[in-house]
């Protein structure tokens, strides 16, 4: 195989080949100087994620998983959980 043809094939497998010949101006993908709309919010920590949301009367939930694999629940004593202050609704299986 000729040498220059081999080089062409090798370049095809080079993941960074597009950086070698950058266009002066891209229209959409790869356009330089575009800023995120929400960049300032995210950088300053003001962006609200699910953990940051607090609603009035919000309930918290805890999972208690079985320590035994493939076990069958025959009975469950939930009186201690229900006696906790502010507990609403019993545990569900």
């Amino acid at each position, binding site marked *: 195989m000729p040498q220059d043809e081999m080089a062409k094939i090798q370049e095809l497998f080079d993941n960074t080949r597009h950086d070698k010949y950058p266009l002066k101006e891209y229209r959409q993908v790869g356009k330089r100087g575009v*800023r*995120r709309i*929400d*960049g*300032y*919010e*995210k*950088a*300053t*920590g*003001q*962006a*609200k*994620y699910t*953990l*940051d949301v607090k609603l009035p009367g919000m309930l918290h939930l805890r999972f208690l998983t079985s320590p035994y694999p493939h076990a069958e629940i025959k009975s469950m004593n939930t009186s201690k959980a229900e006696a906790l*202050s*502010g507990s609403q609704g019993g545990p569900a299986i």
Partner: protein
Amino acid sequence: MTTVKKKELLNEAKIKLEVNGDLYEAGVEATWTLQYVLHDVLGLTGTKAFCDEGACGACTVIMEGRPVLSCMILAIECDGKKIETIEGITRTKHPLIETYVKYSCMQCGYCTPGFIVTAKALLDRNPDPTEEEIKQALAGNICRCGSYPQHIKAVIEAASLLRRRK
């Protein structure tokens, strides 16, 4: 002084914190972490909780000049400490915020406040860090969107902006 009250604590202890120059007094339980107190009790939601086991660095705050993982510190140990969070860095209009937006160092943005706090602590003790020093300083922060190459550019530019300001 802002006093935060919370009802029905079992083993309550009073602590005083100086967060971003403001004095806070809060009743805390022995098991509460500093991250929980900052995020849920004081309402400074910029300090994010992600792994909650000291692996990701999203909850980093500056305590007495050192970047620390707030999810790994019990709040009860922090009585009388000076703490700086991302809200305080925003308030001082630190150039890191501007350069982080300029270089798009975020995709989902959840890790970004932790990165900025760590980078600010680096710039406080080293005003002219090299690329290697920035990589080493930010090594404790994890970003699963893969924004790592951008952070180095942003911190280098923020450092030059800071030096010009002085």
